[in-house]
């Protein structure tokens, strides 16, 4: 009986382990931030880059000018910086502005297409980490119907 309890405990422990490790990986502070500057700081991005008027044309954002339904807005991001490590996506006026952070390695191109939620008309802001440098670009999307529920 004791042995079984011990083994059962061991199995439970083993089953819970990956979850804890994964929970630690997820950047809770950044993703739960309600301000874009805070969210950026959570990713070690200098918030100044987001308010900067210098937008990089080497970061391509393809998104609609107007979105009928903010629940599904298809967006495409591409970085022309050869040493791109990561692409972070923010929607400035969402309740939690950080949408996603993509990290590329081993031949993955700095390119991604996905569908995001937008609560209201807002800038989509993208920050590219290339080597140790950060660059950003933005595109405004007019949202006709709230998509954050």
């Amino acid at each position: 009986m004791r042995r079984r309890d011990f083994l059962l405990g061991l199995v439970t422990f083993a089953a819970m382990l990956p979850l804890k490790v994964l929970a630690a990986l997820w950047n809770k502070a950044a993703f739960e931030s309600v301000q874009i500057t805070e969210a950026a700081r959570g990713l070690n991005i200098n918030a100044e880059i987001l308010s900067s008027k210098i937008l990089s044309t080497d970061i391509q954002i393809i998104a609609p000018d107007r979105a009928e339904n903010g629940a599904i807005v298809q967006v495409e991001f591409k970085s022309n910086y050869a040493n791109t490590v990561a692409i972070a996506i923010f929607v400035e006026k969402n309740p939690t502005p950080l949408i996603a952070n993509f990290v590329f390695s081993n031949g993955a191109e700095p390119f991604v297409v996905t569908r995001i939620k937008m609560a209201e008309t807002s800038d989509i802001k993208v920050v590219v980490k290339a080597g140790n440098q950060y660059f950003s670009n933005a595109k405004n999307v007019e949202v006709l119907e709230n998509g954050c529920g």
Partner: protein
Amino acid sequence: MADMSNMKMRAQLKGDYVEVKVLMSHPMETGRRKDDFDKLVPAHFVQLLTATLNGKTVLEAQWGTGISKNPYLTFRIKGAKLADIITVTWHDNHGATATQDIAVTQG
């Protein structure tokens, strides 16, 4: 709820890169939506997604609640060949996980 473990995947060789398209099945609840009885629906969303090429990590993504329901993703890998294996795995905030493989085909 639909079977979350199922992913639709396609990996096609297009010149010097492979384009991978993935459609996942997940509610992606923000935690701010109210149901018909005015009760908040708890947050339930994918937090981590990884993709590997023949077992080697090529993409690691962290997601918040701002990715749309039934997440869609396209990414590209240089240096991948026909019949190479691409694996996508996600983990959500409830501890659920799904993983699926696809072999690269000619696009």
